């Protein structure tokens, strides 16, 4: 009897903790709802399981589109590769007219840009707008002068009223043990992000989930474990706000007015991280570094 009471107490505690984890999206009318996945294109069981969970979650959180953070198709670019590593795992979502917007990873054939379902329209980098959010998909494999000039022009033209969200493969800030922060890339594009008021950045490459403490007013997420996974892949760097490497994950995001709500889920449906970010009110700054001007 005593053992049963203890068991009930423990179960209640677990249930309490679980309910404490529960996160509710506001699901406001007209809000922008999307998912984010990275390093997923393996064609192996975990990718399918993540995709299945995404579809399940969509019943409660009806996201319209998915941003892909690179390494979309590993190990080849034949029709069969696309079928096994994209079309089949995400079939239910594709059948529900969910759109996928891809960025290129270092494992992606650049000609993926011609694949219609990735919505790249033949370009390595591009921008699109959804509601009050302006997205910038970059090609971090090849950040040449032309792309830098394009990015600056597009950021400049995007004004100050919209959220500005950039996504690309190589993280500017990462505690990943395998790769870590892309410092050189950061030296070139972070000054533009600061100058033109980018709010949030999503990347992959390191096969982990990490939310970094805001850096210079910008929120950074690494979501590189939607197919691949590096268990214990995060180092103690001091920049992590929340990290998770126990299982594959994906992110759900809702942008409603000046608030961005996010939830990161494991393939089993466990809430790994959640929260809300408010758009910082900031005047456009001059970049602190002169490196951009030097080039």
């Amino acid at each position: 009897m005593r053992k049963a009471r203890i068991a009930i107490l423990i179960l209640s505690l677990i249930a309490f903790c679980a309910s404490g984890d529960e996160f509710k999206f506001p699901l406001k009318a007209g809000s922008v709802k999307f998912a984010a996945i990275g390093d997923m294109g393996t064609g192996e069981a975990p990718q399918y399981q993540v995709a299945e969970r995404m579809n399940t979650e969509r019943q409660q959180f009806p996201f319209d589109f998915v941003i892909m953070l690179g390494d979309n198709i590993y190990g080849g670019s034949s029709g069969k590769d696309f079928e096994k590593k994209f079309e089949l795992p995400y079939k239910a979502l594709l059948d529900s007219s969910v759109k996928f917007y891809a960025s290129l990873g270092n494992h992606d054939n650049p000609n993926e840009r011609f694949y219609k379902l990735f919505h790249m329209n033949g370009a390595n980098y591009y921008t699109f707008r959804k509601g009050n959010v302006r997205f910038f998909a970059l090609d971090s494999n090849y950040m040449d002068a032309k792309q830098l000039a394009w990015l600056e022009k597009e950021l400049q033209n995007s004004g100050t009223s919209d959220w500005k969200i950039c996504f690309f493969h190589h993280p500017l800030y990462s505690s990943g043990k395998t790769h870590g922060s892309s410092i050189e890339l950061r030296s070139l594009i972070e000054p533009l992000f600061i100058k033109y008021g980018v709010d949030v950045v999503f990347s992959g490459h390191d096969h982990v989930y990490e939310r970094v403490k805001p850096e210079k007013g910008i929120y950074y997420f690494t979501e590189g474990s939607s197919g691949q996974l590096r268990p214990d892949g995060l180092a103690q760097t001091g920049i992590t706000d929340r990290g998770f490497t126990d299982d594959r994950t994906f992110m759900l995001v809702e942008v409603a007015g000046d608030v961005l709500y996010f939830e990161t889920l494991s393939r089993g449906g466990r809430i790994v991280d959640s929260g809300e970010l408010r758009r910082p009110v900031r005047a456009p700054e001059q970049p602190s570094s002169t490196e951009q001007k030097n080039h």
Partner: protein
Amino acid sequence: MTTRKRKIRIKYLFPLVMWGLLLASAGAKPGTGPAAPSEEAKNGADFKEFMDRVQAYVNLHKAIASSLPALKPTDQPEKIANHQQTLAQRIGEARRHARRGDIFSQGARKAFRRAVREEFGGPHAHGARTTIRQGEPLKTIRLRVNEPYPDGLPYTTLPPTLLLKFPKLPDQVAYRIVGRELVLLDVEANLVIDRIPDIFPETT
């Protein structure tokens, strides 16, 4: 010395002095003939030759691509793969005698080596090495001119600061790092069109 003689001396000496000053301001050193071109000027000339060759290649690419059905965004990935293969095959046939150094001319090779040396010996050295290490560098493959870049292999990330030192390329071609080599790749055909071996330091 009479005033007249002094005037004559000034008349003839003045232009000589001015020529001397002009030569000196242009960097000429007495007794060494014309000034040696600076590194930047050398790179400029060598890169120009390289870019002329790149442009000739791109003209060929365009001519061959225009003879094929245009590649537009498609939901059939086989079409993309077929286009890539056919384009590579046709370009390969048109350049069947292509050899290493056809585009990376001798002068260009020197200029690229200078740029790489400068990058890996300068303030960006640590960042450049880190970028390459983080980008999953390939060590064991050996590529050949006119052969496709092997399907499924990752692309090593190019250090962006190094990329900014290289001449800007047309959209059809891109620089790639493979092991210690710098490779010029036709992106749409996924074809190796030239390479410079052993240009990057071992430790990368």
